[in-house]
């Protein structure tokens, strides 16, 4: 053949490439390429057939031109022709061209597939490899369709060469990654797993990548690989460095294979078979032992390979998290690396230690390295390593070393890299809160934090300080003092001013006794910062001022002066202006009593997940969240519903709701108002009251448009009530003359049912009295506002209310009643607050007794308070499989309560949904296979325990026309709860 004599040098190609390289300008290059393309075109067009060599040469040239960035739109056919050549080089170039320049030309694809098929079925291993490489390189769906069935056969066939097996395994992996639905392993599974036993290490290495990928998708099918992998691993680990010949890399036997095996094992839980487990533990110990041996070579490759295996082994140990001995050894090993010369090793060691710290077995061991880590934080040159060190410090922190770690982190913060400052701030804030024994320490820490890194302190951090200070009586005085001192610094951060304004506004009175911090001094100090602050801070300060008026009447004139000045009352910012106007008005017209009520001290915030934690999670992304969750659990801190709700929005919602400043919706009043307005007769009276007048949101009316407007209407609406009431006054009900509490009204049970699914509304109404109710529940705590409206024009005297808990209920429910004014003016409305704490689950309702004299006649009235067990529900979102798993767990007969009952109302899906949501549970969509059914989940929070509840409501609309039935099934971990809930709910539908 002439091609042989020419050799495989392809001189023409070399000349062409050197021509291109010698071109002086782009134009010259383009000219040369055009000339070459014309030449190739004429050659391909030419009548006489080209021999394989020239075809190969021209295809090579085209490939080169293509790689230079020029379009190639011909030559595909010639390349496909090359595929059928018998010479390796020609075939290789053909495949190369195809894999680089393949396009979805159907005709061509068919030809290519045909050629590949021929090569796969040939017995020539090099041709088979070429074909497999081409399939893997292209990896398109068409390829997968054509060859997904063929390749597994090649992979497991007994007579396939080892090199081909290797290629086949990797090719299959690629196809599986691009189109997993087309690669069906079914029948090949066990044979693929047995490739782990193959003689040839290369085959094992290639196969293990495939198996790892496959077993991540369906772990059960590949379970058998664990024992094989363990035995393989132990053979490698125990082999001498010379045993594996080609697969020994710088004296380390088969490092890649070992790493992959260890990684495969990380897909599975620890082996249950004792023997296998023992063998694996032995392997891991050997690996740890080897790390202690002196290095066999000074080359960096040797230590790299060794350490790669070691780190993978440690990752496996951490994954198993069940061998205290190994965990501690791993920790010690990592401790050695902490001081290693290699920056990368230090980084890896810190990173692995972070995960080790979360294991209960090795937590203590990790803690012993605290000094080294702190040192690393201070001296490390690489910022990424410092970041890891900070992470590790955060992870290893607990009650015993919190003070030290927080102090170190604070001192580091001053010099910390800008990129990690915000995260550091969040971490310090969280640690300080989590491990605070002494809350004055906490306050000190956070104020320090604001002073050092004010710019990086996010809203959540200072919200949280305020929440904690308000909830803890013991620290309030100290906080006020410290804040006062901190504010005296000539320049302090705006966040400091915010905290200062808020705390002094609330608790300034606690330090007012000291002449150095007398009310006026406090006010002047705050006001000296006022002009340097942004609008939101100024708004907050204005609120603080009005609180000052309440706390210290002597400052009233000064503050009114300030409010009155043009820069406030005519401020261009509408928010500031409104506040100034409203506060000025409020302070001048309201009596001290009104002021004291409106500007009452903030009520304690409901305890909930720290908003900072949510922020940190958000910052770290979803990956870190689970970690945090686990940690939280370890600390015994129960994460309630807020933590478990998926999605960021709800987390943000939660954090917003817990912030003190924009707290108009602190109790969700606004959103609740329309519900309460439902009964039309009560609307005119109640809406105004409900819309704003919750005493819990006094001064913090950031978003309230009509703070004062809402204070005024009561007189107005009472006028209309008067008119209304006067008509009725004649037909006053016959007085029930009895000093004893009257028995509950017969209809009170019905009333109770009315409030199972809602929290607000009119509880009771007769000609004399209207009782509105509004309630709010958080965890096991509840607060109820009762609004007693005098519908007559005559005052009620000796108006008293009591709440009694009959029988056992006393020990189940703790109800506290705030006293109410004994005089109710005609047409007026009084409000009463009831605090409720659920100690354990209960089934009865507390009884409210109301006594008053109307025109001399004693009125005695008893009602059931609408407090039912479902009020203490926390909704829980869960996925379908999760739900049914729990459902199955609660399968004991006493845990289930079921009722089949007739529908009282029409079956309207939306109404049912609304009712179920009102119940307090989470309505789970797409959980039940039957879309008609409703499925809910929630946790009942009581002081003594938490009771998880699952609910399933199956409407049967078709069964008997006119007699629509429901089947209600409740399962909970406590039988009484199931029963009570079932009874309550059965009345609702």
């Amino acid at each position: 053949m002439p091609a042989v004599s020419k050799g495989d040098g392809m001189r023409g190609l070399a000349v062409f490439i050197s021509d291109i390289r010698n071109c002086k300008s782009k134009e010259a290059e383009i000219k040369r390429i055009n000339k070459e393309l014309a030449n190739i075109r004429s050659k391909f067009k030419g009548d006489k057939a080209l021999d394989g060599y020239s075809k190969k040469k021209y295809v090579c040239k085209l490939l080169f031109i293509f790689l230079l960035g020029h379009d190639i739109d011909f030559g595909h056919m010639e390349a496909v022709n090359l595929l059928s050549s018998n010479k390796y080089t020609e075939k290789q170039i053909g495949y190369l061209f195809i894999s680089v320049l393949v396009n979805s030309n159907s005709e061509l694809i068919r030809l290519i597939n045909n050629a590949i098929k021929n090569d796969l079925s040939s017995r020539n291993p090099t041709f088979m490899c070429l074909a497999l490489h081409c399939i893997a390189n292209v990896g398109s769906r068409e390829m997968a369709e054509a060859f997904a069935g063929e390749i597994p056969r090649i992979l497991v066939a007994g007579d396939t060469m080892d090199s081909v097996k290797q290629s086949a395994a990797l090719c299959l992996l690629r196809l599986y990654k691009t189109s997993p639905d087309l690669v069906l392993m079914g029948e090949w599974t066990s044979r693929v797993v047995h490739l782990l036993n193959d003689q040839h290490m290369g085959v094992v290495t290639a196969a293990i990548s495939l198996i790892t990928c496959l077993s991540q998708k369906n772990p059960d099918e590949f379970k058998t690989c664990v024992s094989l992998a363990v035995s393989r691993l132990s053979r490698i680990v125990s082999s001498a460095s010379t045993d594996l010949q080609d697969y020994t890399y710088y004296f380390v036997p088969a490092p890649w294979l070992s790493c992959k095996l260890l990684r495969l094992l990380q897909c599975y839980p620890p082996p249950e078979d004792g023997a296998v487990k023992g063998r694996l533990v032995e392997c891991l110990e050997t690996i740890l032992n080897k790390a202690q041996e002196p290095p066999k070579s000074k080359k960096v490759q040797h230590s790299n390979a060794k350490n790669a295996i070691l780190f993978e082994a440690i990752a496996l140990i951490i994954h198993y998290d069940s061998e205290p001995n190994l965990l501690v050894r791993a920790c010690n090993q990592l401790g050695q690396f902490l001081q290693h010369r290699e920056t990368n090793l230090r980084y890896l060691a810190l990173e692995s230690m972070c995960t080790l710290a979360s294991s209960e077995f090795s937590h203590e061991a990790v803690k012993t390295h605290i000094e080294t880590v702190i040192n690393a934080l201070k001296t490390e040159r690489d910022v990424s390593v410092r970041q890891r060190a900070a992470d590790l410090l955060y992870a290893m922190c607990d009650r015993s070393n919190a003070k030290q770690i927080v102090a170190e982190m604070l001192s580091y913060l001053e010099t910390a890299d800008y990129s990690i400052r915000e995260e550091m701030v969040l971490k310090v804030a969280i640690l300080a809160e989590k491990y605070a024994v002494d809350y004055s320490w906490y306050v000190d820490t956070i104020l320090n934090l604001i002073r050092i890194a004010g710019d990086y302190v996010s809203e959540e951090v200072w919200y949280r300080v305020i929440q904690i200070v308000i909830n803890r009586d013991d620290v309030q005085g100290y906080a006020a003092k410290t804040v006062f001192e901190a504010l005296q610094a000539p320049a302090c951060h705006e966040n400091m001013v915010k905290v200062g304004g808020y705390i002094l506004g609330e608790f300034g009175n606690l330090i007012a006794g000291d002449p150095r911090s007398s009310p006026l001094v406090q006010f002047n100090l705050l006001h000296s910062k006022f002009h340097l602050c942004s609008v939101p801070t100024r708004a907050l300060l204005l609120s603080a001022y009005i609180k000052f008026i309440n706390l210290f009447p002597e400052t009233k004139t000064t503050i009114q002066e300030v409010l009155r000045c043009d820069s406030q009352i005519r401020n261009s910012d509408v928010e500031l202006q409104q506040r100034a106007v409203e506060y000025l008005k409020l302070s001048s017209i309201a009596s001290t009593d009104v002021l004291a009520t409106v500007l009452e001290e903030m009520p304690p915030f409901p305890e909930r997940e720290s908003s900072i934690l949510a922020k940190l999670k958000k910052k770290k992304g979803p990956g870190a969240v689970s970690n945090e969750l686990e940690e939280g659990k370890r600390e015994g801190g129960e994460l309630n519903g807020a933590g478990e709700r998926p999605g960021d929005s709800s987390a943000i919602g939660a954090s917003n709701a817990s912030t003190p400043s924009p707290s108009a919706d602190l109790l969700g009043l606004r959103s609740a108002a329309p519900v309460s307005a439902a009964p039309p007769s009560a609307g005119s009276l109640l809406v105004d009251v409900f819309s704003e007048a919750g005493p819990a949101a006094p001064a913090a009316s950031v978003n309230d448009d009509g703070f004062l407007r809402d204070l005024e209407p009561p007189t107005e609406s009472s006028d209309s009530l008067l008119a209304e009431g006067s008509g009725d006054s004649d037909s006053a009900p016959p007085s029930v003359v009895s000093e004893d509490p009257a028995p509950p009204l017969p209809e009170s049970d019905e009333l109770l049912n009315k409030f199972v699914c809602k929290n607000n509304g009119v509880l009771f109404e007769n000609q004399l009295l209207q009782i509105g109710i509004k309630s709010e529940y958080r965890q096991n705590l509840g607060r109820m506002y009762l609004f007693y409206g005098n519908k007559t024009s005559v005052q009620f005297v000796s108006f008293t209310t009591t709440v009694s808990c009959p029988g056992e209920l006393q020990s189940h429910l703790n109800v506290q009643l705030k006293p109410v004014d004994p005089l109710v003016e005609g047409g007026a409305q009084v409000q009463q607050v009831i605090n409720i704490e659920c100690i354990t689950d209960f089934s009865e309702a507390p009884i409210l007794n109301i006594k008053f004299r109307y025109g001399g006649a004693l009125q005695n009235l008893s009602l059931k308070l609408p407090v039912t067990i479902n009020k203490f529900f926390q909704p829980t979102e869960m996925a379908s499989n999760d739900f049914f798993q729990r459902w199955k767990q609660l399968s004991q007969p006493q845990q289930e309560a079921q009722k089949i009952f007739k529908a009282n109302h029409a079956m309207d899906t939306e109404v049912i949904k609304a009712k179920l949501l009102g119940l307090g549970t989470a309505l789970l969509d797409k959980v039940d296979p039957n879309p008609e059914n409703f499925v809910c989940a929630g946790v009942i929070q009581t002081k003594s325990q938490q009771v998880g509840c699952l609910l399933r409501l199956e409407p049967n609309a078709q069964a008997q026309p006119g007699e629509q039935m429901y089947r209600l099934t409740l399962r909970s971990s406590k039988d009484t709860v199931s029963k009570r809930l079932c009874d309550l709910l059965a009345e609702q539908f």
Partner: protein
Amino acid sequence: MIGGLFIYNHKGEVLISRVYRDDIGRNAVDAFRVNVIHARQQVRSPVTNIARTSFFHVKRSNIWLAAVTKQNVNAAMVFEFLYKMCDVMTAYFGKISEENIKNNFVLIYELLDEILDFGYPQNSETGALKTFITQQGIKSQTKEEQSQITSQVTGQIGWRREGIKYRRNELFLDVLESVNLLMSPQGQVLSAHVSGRVVMKSYLSGMPECKFGMNDKIVIDKQGKGGTTDDAGKSELGGSSGKQSIAIDDCTFHQCVRLSKFDSERSISFIPPDGEYELMRYRTTKDIILPFRVIPLVREVGRTKLEVKVVIKSNFKPSLLAQKIEVRIPTPLNTSGVQVICMKGKAKYKASENAIVWKIKRMAGMKESQISAEIELLPTNDKKKWARPPISMNFEVPFAPSGLKVRYLKVFEPKLNYSDHDVIKWVRYIGRSGIYETRC
């Protein structure tokens, strides 16, 4: 104003670097190289803005000239200066090439010192420069000469020194035009214009006053109305085709022309520089004489064959001869073979340019010639259709396609005793093709 001036070779190596202002740092040199010379995509805009610094460049063969500034300068001024700079260099050492620049870099720095001062362009008139920047080393100057230089650099007539003397007073006048055309396949003119230059070479003694006249429509009309024919017929110096007057769209003059006189009387009078210079530039768009007509005929025969037939017709007096005719017929990108037959000249398929190039040495007026080609195509799987770029043409004809004619050029030198009649005057017309294209 110009902050600095750099000259690069084709590789982007700096040959000449002269910085006039402090706001241009050394990194500007690299910025231009990286972003323009070595840019991935060819930079087409002559003005490039990199990091708030403007680079104005022109390219002469393989040499890049770049003026750099951080200020908001008059771009036209900068380019005018760069072109002048090229002219000056050409006048001093011939072709601008890497070799020449390397051999003359001392001279170039000297020139740059003279023609730009703190970034403000100064006298860039070759004739004047040559008097005090010489290639032949240091030339001793008498005191008289030195004082002359001062008066020349600062004086009114910076482009001509006094005391020039020639035995033979001679004057060469070239009218150089380039004609641009875009024509539809049906022969409809889509756009056409002529841009022309009047270039003079004067070897005149003393400080002569010259007056130049041509068949400008405004002048002719004014004279026609006035009834005074003047001595138009007498001073007619030459011309080819019969057209009375032409409408000039716009024109620019050499600095020696007295613009006030042109504005008031529309007459072009000036004291010429010594040697070669460009007296004026102009542009016309009306009544252009198109020297050639190209008639293309393209037929696609199946997917693999294309038949092209192109006829060219010359459209001027039969006595005149067009020269250097070249017709360029683009071929599709998947051409695999070409057969050409032409009646006259030589035709060849140039693969590197994807075109058939047909060359004819000479062709008289009112003649016709034809080429036919068969192009074989390689079938491709590409669906893109061939864009059919236009057929372009190059030629040179001995007349002005705009119709411009020189009516007179009078020379007055009151101080020396030679009159207009003693001056030997030569006039030449050359019409060249600019972008002369016909769509097919």
